[in-house]
């Protein structure tokens, strides 16, 4: 029988998580997927880029091993084998995709392979076959949008352009690379290729990189990356691109930057092909509008992940998927977007949750900002990673922590403590009184919390 309680279109981190949760709650579930399970995150995004980053960091660490007391490393002999790196990435991705297949089997989620076309909210057609469902979850994700730059098409044909999704199509590590735009993906690629030994120039339109990230953190990162060799060009307008390079205008002056490759990570737009039969309400840039239960304007139709344009982040998609599955199964559940962590995988990493100082002030909150530098932390020193800090923003009335920003190696893991405390509406008093293990970089939490109340211990 082709009747389901829930059909999910799209098997990315939103769709597949939602499917498993819905099945666990008792729904009969099918997932329609046209490509690989795991979506952008697993196939091109989070996991593959982190595999690359691991190799890149290791490479850099080996080159710098002397400082840590290791002799005998010949920098000229150490090299990154691009193809072996890709093999390793393939293996990891395959393993994870098989893992999802296994989880589907275990939870009796059916996988329908092919492109799903919605006939009406209860009817989906895949490869000419009709499937019926009581609830529909749209998890089709988003795709890249390319900027309009004169000559881009011709350069594409000459294989000079890499779009962020296709970075793995590179045959080798480019000698030089120009990265276009100043968003988190651009900055991550700039860091990555810099670690791998490329000459990197990052050209962006704003006055600073990462305009939505905590200002001091973004600035410190820019400074650090500059020190490591990345060139930054700000306030740029992209004019044209040809064999001689990319032409930009900066403060009225034209400049040309030539490189082996040009990497573009511009913007995204929702994948809404196949959904035309539904009269879905759409917001800015065509993203599907949803309420806090992830429901669209149509009863029984939900939209999760990149397609709703809220936060193009895998962990948000998964959380939204769980919320949708719970609501379908009669559990009251809603999304809270005020505590979504954001990670930027550079060296050091940036991790944020909640409000920045500027945003809190804009909201008219009465706040205290407490900052503590990594340079005063023993573990950070022993690891040779003292660039960075933690900033805790707390509201004065009850001391509630409303924002945490960490710049540090391992910030990706460290931020979870802040997310947990904030999820529980915890205060700086709770954080200060939490006994943190020594020696860890996470001790900076306690220091910043005491800083907000009175004074940090180690300063």
């Amino acid at each position: 029988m082709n009747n389901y309680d829930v059909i999910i279109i799209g098997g990315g981190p939103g769709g597949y998580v939602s499917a498993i949760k819905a099945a666990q709650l008792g729904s009969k579930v099918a997932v329609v997927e046209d490509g690989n399970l795991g979506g952008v995150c697993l196939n091109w995004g989070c996991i593959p880029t982190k595999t690359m980053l691991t190799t890149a960091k290791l490479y850099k660490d080996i080159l710098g091993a002397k400082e840590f007391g290791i002799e005998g490393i010949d920098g000229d002999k150490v090299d990154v084998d691009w193809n072996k790196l890709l093999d390793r990435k393939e293996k990891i991705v395959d393993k994870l995709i098989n893992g999802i297949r296994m989880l589907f089997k275990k939870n009796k989620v059916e996988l329908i392979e092919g492109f799903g076309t919605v006939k009406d909210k209860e009817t989906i057609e895949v490869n000419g076959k009709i499937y019926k469902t009581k609830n529909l979850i749209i998890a089709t994700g988003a795709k890249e949008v390319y900027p309009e730059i004169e000559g881009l098409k011709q350069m594409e044909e000459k294989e000079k352009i890499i779009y962020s999704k296709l970075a793995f199509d590179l045959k080798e590590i480019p000698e030089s690379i120009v990265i276009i735009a100043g968003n988190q993906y651009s900055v991550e690629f700039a860091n990555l290729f810099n670690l791998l030994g490329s000459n990197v120039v990052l050209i962006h339109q704003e006055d600073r990189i990462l305009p939505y990230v905590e200002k001091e953190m973004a600035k410190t990162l820019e400074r650090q990356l500059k020190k490591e060799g990345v060139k930054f060009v700000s306030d740029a307008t992209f004019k044209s691109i040809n064999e001689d390079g990319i032409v930009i205008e900066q403060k009225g002056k034209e400049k040309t930057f030539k490189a082996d490759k040009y990497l573009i990570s511009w913007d995204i737009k929702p994948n809404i092909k196949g959904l035309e039969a539904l009269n879905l309400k759409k917001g800015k840039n065509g993203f599907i509008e949803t309420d806090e239960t992830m429901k669209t304007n149509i009863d029984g139709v939900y939209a999760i992940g990149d397609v709703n344009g809220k936060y193009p982040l895998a962990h948000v998609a998964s959380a939204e998927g769980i919320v949708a599955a719970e609501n379908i199964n009669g559990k009251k559940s809603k999304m809270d977007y005020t505590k979504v962590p954001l990670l930027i995988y550079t060296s050091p990493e940036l991790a944020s949750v909640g409000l920045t100082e500027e945003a809190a002030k804009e909201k008219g909150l009465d706040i205290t900002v407490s900052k503590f530098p990594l340079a005063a932390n023993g573990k950070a020193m022993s690891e040779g990673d003292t660039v960075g800090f933690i900033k805790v923003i707390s509201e004065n009335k009850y001391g509630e922590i409303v924002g945490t920003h960490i710049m540090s190696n391992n910030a990706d893991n460290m931020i979870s403590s802040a997310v947990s405390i904030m999820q529980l509406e915890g205060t700086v008093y709770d954080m200060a009184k939490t006994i943190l293990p020594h020696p860890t970089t996470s001790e900076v939490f306690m220091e910043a919390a005491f800083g907000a109340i009175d004074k940090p211990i180690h300063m």
Partner: protein
Amino acid sequence: MRFEFKFPDVGEGIHEGTIVKWLVEKGEEIKEGDSLIEVETDKVTTDIPSPKSGKVLELLGDEGEIIHVGNVFVVLDIEGEASSEDVENLSAAGGGTKDSFDEADKEKKLDEKEEVIEEETAGVVGEVVVSSEEIPPSDEGVISRKSTEEKLSKKALATPVARAMAKDLGLDINSVEGTGPGGRVMKEDIQKAKDSSKEKSQEKIQEKPEIKREAKPLQLDEASEGEGLYERVPLTRIRKTIAQKMSESKFTIPHTTVMDEINVTELDKFRKKYKDILREEGVNLTYLPFIIKASITAIKELREFNSSLDEVNEEMVYKNFYNIGIATDTQRGLMVPVIRDADKKSIVEIAKEIVDLSTRAKDNKLELSELQGGTFTITNYGSIGGHFGIPIINHPESAILGLGRIIKKPIVDENDNIVVGKMLPISLSYDHRIIDGASGSRFVNILKELLIDPDMLFLKS
């Protein structure tokens, strides 16, 4: 076994008493029927006999202190030793609930108890833990222990900020429904509880008085009913509501009405002076906005006219906001849209709002919220006709002002001349349970003072 004896309902609507004297001592062996305590209530002084035989373990409360119905005041050991489990129960009850006190700080607990009741009527979402649970002197102690456990399990899971906020706002966090994971009380829930507390207390007052009147079918002559002499038309929803509200008011509130006539000649002159100017601005300046202003001045002075009676808690609930309902005749029936915070609005603003509300009432375009939250109502039946009437109070409000048709009458002035006066007949109905006749007359006097001389109205309102 440990047995907690709660101050029983001694009847005659008595909810509390003062401890005059303990008639037993701690450690004393007593028999069922022995007098435990002498208590003075507002009607009598009475001895309370023990429902059980056993040994007195604890006497809670000192002589001169107030105890409430439902409070544990004596703990007995009956049929053997108190088990550790039982002791645990009691200490939990002392710490977590408010109807029994820990010996160490019993005085504090007594205070706290009173606080809780105050909070309830102050419109705070909280639970009054009295009266429903006390057991008659002969019952088993099991019941009280069970309810203690139930309360214990209600200890709320809450976030640190939610706890701090609840403490600040004087909310009982255990009574707030949590919407966080696992029912955790989040700060948003506290905010919501705070916002709704005012409304809730009003709802509660509305809910309390149950009208125990059975509806009987109307008996008609069956034979003639078939001949087209009668026509049966089902009530519309709005008519059903009106019928129910009227019954609720009339059967709950002992109405009384005071009537008078007010000479509004001067007010009429004043009104006419500005009427045409304001008409150009699109304002229809009737008498009503002036009367609303005068009424607010009167109810500010005589707060009971802007109050409700909480029968269950036996408390007056005074409202510190002034939302004036305007009884409006519509095709579908009587509607009472509300002018919110009328005390903060000018006469012109009120005039505009009256037109807006009454127009939309007639077009059936009012929002439900615009019909709720009134604290005092004015009905202008005179606009259609009629001199005096007996308006029915818009329950749970405490008073309603009826306005008759203004007519010219011969008046004897201060120089004993007969002059023509424009006379406004008014009828003020009020809840005679909480408003005495003298207050009714005082209210009318204030209205007269302000409406006879418009300058006075502007000086005082």
